[in-house]
C-alpha cells in the first residue's frame, strides 16, 4: 500500500476497506448507516424556513425530514473537514473552478462549468430524494445491507451517469 498522510492517493482498495470498517463503527456506536443526501433536504428546509418562516415546516416532506441539524448533517460537515485535512496534507487544496477533464472538452470558461454544475446538482438532489438515498446511503450502506432497493438505485445511478457522460463527452464535446 502507499502510505503516509502526505500521499495524494492511497490504493482504492485500502480506502474502500477503510470505509467498510468505518461502517461497522457507525452501526455499532451510532446505530446508523453512512449516508449524505438527506442532509441537503434538511438544509434546504432550513433555508426555506429562514425565508418563509414556520410555514415551511408544514410541507409534508419537511414533517418527515425535519429541517435542522442531526447526526448525518454532522457527518457531512465532517466530510468537508476530513477532505480539507487530506487535501492540505497532500498539497491538493486549491480554489479551482474548472476540473481538468471538463477543461479538455469544454474549455476553461467558469460560467459554463458553474451553470452545468448547478443544473447537475438540481437533478442530483431531486433524484437522491426521489430514490431515497445517494451513492453512499444506497450505493455503499444499502448494498452492504443487501437491500433490493439499494442495489436497483445504485445500478440506476451508474446507468444514468454513464449514458449522460458518454453523450456529454463523446457526442456533444
Amino acid at each position, binding site marked *: 500500500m502507499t502510505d503516509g498522510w502526505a500521499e495524494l492517493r492511497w490504493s482504492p482498495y485500502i480506502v474502500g*476497506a477503510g470505509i467498510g470498517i468505518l461502517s461497522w463503527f457507525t452501526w455499532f456506536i451510532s446505530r446508523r448507516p453512512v449516508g449524505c443526501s438527506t442532509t*441537503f433536504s434538511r438544509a434546504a428546509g432550513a433555508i426555506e424556513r429562514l425565508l418563509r418562516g414556520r410555514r415551511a415546516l408544514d410541507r409534508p416532506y419537511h414533517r418527515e425530514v425535519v429541517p435542522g441539524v442531526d447526526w448525518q448533517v454532522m457527518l457531512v460537515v465532517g466530510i468537508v473537514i476530513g477532505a480539507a485535512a487530506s487535501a492540505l496534507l497532500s498539497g491538493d487544496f486549491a480554489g479551482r473552478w474548472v476540473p481538468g477533464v471538463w477543461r479538455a472538452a469544454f474549455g476553461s470558461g467558469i460560467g459554463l462549468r458553474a451553470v452545468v454544475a448547478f443544473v447537475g446538482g438540481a437533478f442530483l438532489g431531486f433524484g437522491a430524494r426521489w430514490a431515497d438515498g445517494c451513492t453512499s446511503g444506497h450505493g455503499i450502506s444499502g448494498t452492504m445491507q443487501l437491500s433490493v432497493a439499494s442495489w436497483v438505485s445504485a445500478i440506476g445511478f451508474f446507468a444514468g451517469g454513464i449514458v449522460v457522460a458518454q453523450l456529454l463527452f463523446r457526442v456533444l464535446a
Partner: protein
Amino acid sequence: MRSKGADLAWGLLFGMIFGFLLHKGGATSYDVILGQLLLADFTVLKIMLSAVVVGAIGIHLLQGWGRVVLSPKRGSWGKNAVGGLIFGVGFALLGYCPGTIAGAIGAGRLDALVGGLPGILLGSWLFAVVYPRVKDGLLRKGAFPKATLPELLRLPRWAVIGLLSPAIALLLTLIERAGL
C-alpha cells in the same frame, strides 16, 4: 441513551474519517468520477465494491451477534429505478455526488461550492414541493416484493454474502487485468 451532543460529535468524527478517506481515494475529484462514468478509470467502483464486501461481513456479523439492528430500505421500481436514473443524470453533469461534493468543497473546488451545492439544495427543495403528488403514486409503482436479496432469492444471508464477495473479487480482478 447517549446524549444528543455525544451523538452529534460521533457523527462529526465519522464524517471526518469518511471525508479523509474519500479524498485519499480520489473520489472527491471530478476527474476521477467522470473517469468512472466514461469507463476509463474504475477507481470509484473499486472503492465502493471493496467497502461493500468489507462492510457487509462486519455488519452482518454484528447483526448475527445481536449487537446492531440493520435497516435495509424498502423500495419500488418507481422510486429506485426512476430516482436512480434522475440522480445519474445529475451525477454526470455535476461530477460529484452528495457525499463527495462535501469533500470537493473541503478541497477548495469552487464549481462544487458555487455551482453544485446550491443546485443540490434547489433539487432537494423541489422534491419536497412535489412530494405530496408522488408519494402515494409513482413512488409506490412496482413495489419490490421483499426488502433484501436473501429474502428475494430465498437464500440464507451468508449464502448471499458468500456468493457476492467472490463475484465482486472476480470483477475487480478482471478490471485490474484490463488495466482500468
